[in-house]
């Protein structure tokens, strides 16, 4: 029995998800003691409410982004344009649905310039096209990913403002607000979007050969090409997919605040997305990836943010506190750092291993 537990424990500690989960547990544990009612969940109007639900809800855009970003990073790439794509996606959907409020006989009625599903479709299509643009630059033209996506990162905000004509468009159309604020089966609707994107992606990467190809490309693109993998096609596709994910995240954010702000929607969120992937135990050097890890990473980041607000840390130092926490998490995840800090213990363990091995 004991042995079984030990092997299970060893399996867990050697798994890639061990450290991201540990990080999440640390943050949650901290909240258990220091944040009032962090885990308290109450039911209002058939919906679950509470700080933890709020964390999940607020993390939805980041989680969707992190899924797309994971695949891009797995190919040894990076996509820093996702924040701008979020802004564009929001701007497109807002301008297609329109910011008009009309009253008929004193009663507010909801009007759209274009049917909502069509508007959403157009926004997602444009986001995917933007992702394809990135993919084209990286795979066909051969520009380094960070430079290629930097172009859209800078230009994208301009495009978004062009679409909204420099204004913040407010959306009064109620059904659209459901995406970011609605509830389904008691849970925020956004979570279902994440679940759907996650399930589809996981199926694509683990039940088809796409996952292995992406990992192979990330580890050794030349050898992958020689083995017959159409490297350019897959690199192109992951950027297109990342664009689509950013588009979805843009819709959630836009719907959540009922407005499209070309300037501030999704500002700096690309950094959080990259960080989520990294905290999730994925190497920025490409190769092996874990989408679950990235989702945990996203939750860690959102938990930290929410905790900082809940504790009433003065706004001017929230970023500093956040960065300190992130540094600690990253250090704990670094094998080299752990070796240095826990060296004494490890050496002891190593001696025992050596003895055992010699006896074998």
């Amino acid at each position, binding site marked *: 029995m004991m042995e079984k537990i030990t092997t299970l424990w060893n399996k867990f500690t050697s798994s890639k998800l061990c450290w991201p989960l540990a990080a999440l547990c640390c943050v949650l544990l901290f909240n258990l003691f220091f944040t009032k009612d962090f885990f308290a969940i109450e039911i209002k109007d058939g919906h679950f409410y509470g700080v933890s639900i709020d964390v999940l809800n607020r993390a939805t855009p980041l989680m969707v982004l992190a899924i797309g970003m994971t695949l891009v990073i797995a190919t040894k790439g990076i996509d820093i344009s996702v924040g701008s794509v979020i802004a564009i996606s929001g701007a497109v959907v807002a301008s297609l649905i329109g910011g008009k409020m009309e009253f008929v006989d004193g009663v507010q009625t909801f009007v759209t310039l274009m049917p909502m599903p069509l508007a959403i479709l157009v926004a997602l299509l444009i986001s995917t096209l933007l992702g394809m643009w990135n993919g084209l630059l990286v795979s066909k033209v051969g520009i380094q990913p960070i430079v290629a996506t930097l172009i859209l990162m800078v230009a994208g905000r301009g495009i978004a403002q062009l679409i909204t004509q420099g204004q913040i468009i407010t959306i009064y159309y109620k059904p659209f607000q459901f995406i970011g604020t609605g509830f389904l089966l008691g849970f925020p609707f956004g979570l279902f979007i994440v679940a759907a994107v996650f399930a589809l992606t996981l199926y694509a990467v683990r039940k088809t050969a796409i996952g292995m190809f992406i990992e192979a490309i990330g*580890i*050794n693109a030349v050898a992958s*090409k020689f083995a017959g993998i*159409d490297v350019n096609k897959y690199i192109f596709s992951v950027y297109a997919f990342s664009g689509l994910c950013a588009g979805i995240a843009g819709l959630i954010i836009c719907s959540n605040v009922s407005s499209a702000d070309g300037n501030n929607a999704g500002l700096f969120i690309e950094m959080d997305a990259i960080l989520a992937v990294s905290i999730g135990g994925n190497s920025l050097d490409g*190769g*092996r990836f874990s989408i679950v890890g990235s989702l945990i990473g996203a939750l860690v980041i959102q938990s930290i943010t929410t905790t900082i607000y809940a504790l009433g840390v003065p706004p001017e130092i929230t970023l500093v506190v956040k960065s300190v926490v992130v540094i600690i998490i990253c250090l704990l995840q670094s094998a080299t750092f752990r070796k240095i800090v826990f060296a004494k213990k490890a050496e002891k363990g190593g001696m025992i291993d050596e003895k055992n091995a010699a006896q074998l």
Partner: protein
Amino acid sequence: MDGNNSLLQAKGIYKIFPGVKALTNVDFELKPGEIHCLMGENGAGKSTLIKVLTGVEILDGGDIFLDGKSIRPRSPHDAQGLGISTVYQEVNLCPNLSVAENIFIGREPLRFGRINWKEINNRSRLLLAKMNLNIDVTQALERYSVAVQQMVAIARSLDISAKVLILDEPTSSLDAKEVGQLFDLLRKLKAEGMGIVFITHFIEQVYAISDRITILRNGELVGCYETAALPRVQLIAKMIGKAFEGFEKSYKKGEERDTPDDRNVFLQASGVGHKGSINPFDLTINKGEVLGLVGLLGSGRTEVARTIFGIDTADSGEIVIKGKIVYLNTPVDAIAHGLAYCSENRKTEGIIDALTVRENLVVALQAKLGWRKYINKKEQEKITNKYIKLLDIKTSGPEQLIKNLSGGNQQKVLLARWLLTEPDLLILDEPTRGIDIGAKVEIQRLILSLAAGGMSVVFISSELDESVRCSNRMVVLRDREKIAEISGAEIDEKYIMQTIAGV
């Protein structure tokens, strides 16, 4: 015994990798002014022993003495500081830096706090001139052949004024003349009192240069012998650990070759070329034959393969496969037409190092099938286990990372990768480079039996005797041009050498 006269001594070395005991109680001794060969089959533990001695891997047990003092190198840098320098099997330099930068990287001479480029370039030039290598040291390293890169790596080690120089397969990518140059250099260094550890698979070279031989097998020490007192047959018997038989036979097998039916053409290339790498050439490959491509390093052997396989897209001529004109613009196209190519650069163009043996094995087949037709994991494991057994791949299992395998076993995985796609034409570029005699013979036999089974094989090798043994026909290249085609009775080492030399 002059045991106290040893320069470098290792006693009772243990090294354990997850699932593999790489070294068990291994002793090794190097005297000053000696060239000492380390021999053994793939996975015998030669590279691991070197890595332990040079601090790349930390040993799990045992002691190392340098000049009688106990040392424990923690990193290659550490070992270098102690006077142990290494040149590894695969060149470990920065290809995009200049030759001179590569020689002085990490220890650039300074002048007023700034790098003294003049001195770096001058000293590099002198250093290489000593090795009879006169090249422009300010050019990027990648512009030179692997052979030159290898020499630069050695020059770098020498300049760190080593007491002990370790050469891991230094000659596997050098041609005869360059090997001669290298050996002259080694003899000079030996006379100066340096201890040299030399790992190679070329038996000839062992007897040409070494004073003593230490043999390892399966991570254990077989023994240490005076080279002059150990006959070749015994050396090989000790390496493979069994009575030496069937070896000579396979050497002679090649003479019974027959020329396949000419109407049975698989691939015909006419006027195919790629500007800057290979001049237009004509080439016919028949079904079920082994076509040897021979020539000096850089003569265009690899370039022919790369052009046919669609890596360097042909910019002239046409390729006809099974009577139809085809356009092979990418490896994907080539594979779809039944081609397979095993690159000479195992590390950079072959293995995907952080993936498992299983994934490395099925990747080409999976790529050929496309992403939708996923071979499920169970099926993958079945295939992998089958090939591990079939090719006798030494690994702790299908889930072992391929980078933990020895060079020869990695090569076998790559061969299996392509065999799995059931190609009509298999192009093998230096498939036996850096692997031991036993595996070499195995691979040669495999090639012959594949050809007997109807597969066409293009075989590229720097070892002429190997090419002669395996090929039905041979194509000779010189200076990026096809100069001759040899078949039948003309296949003879001497004649081919004359052709290569252009006499």
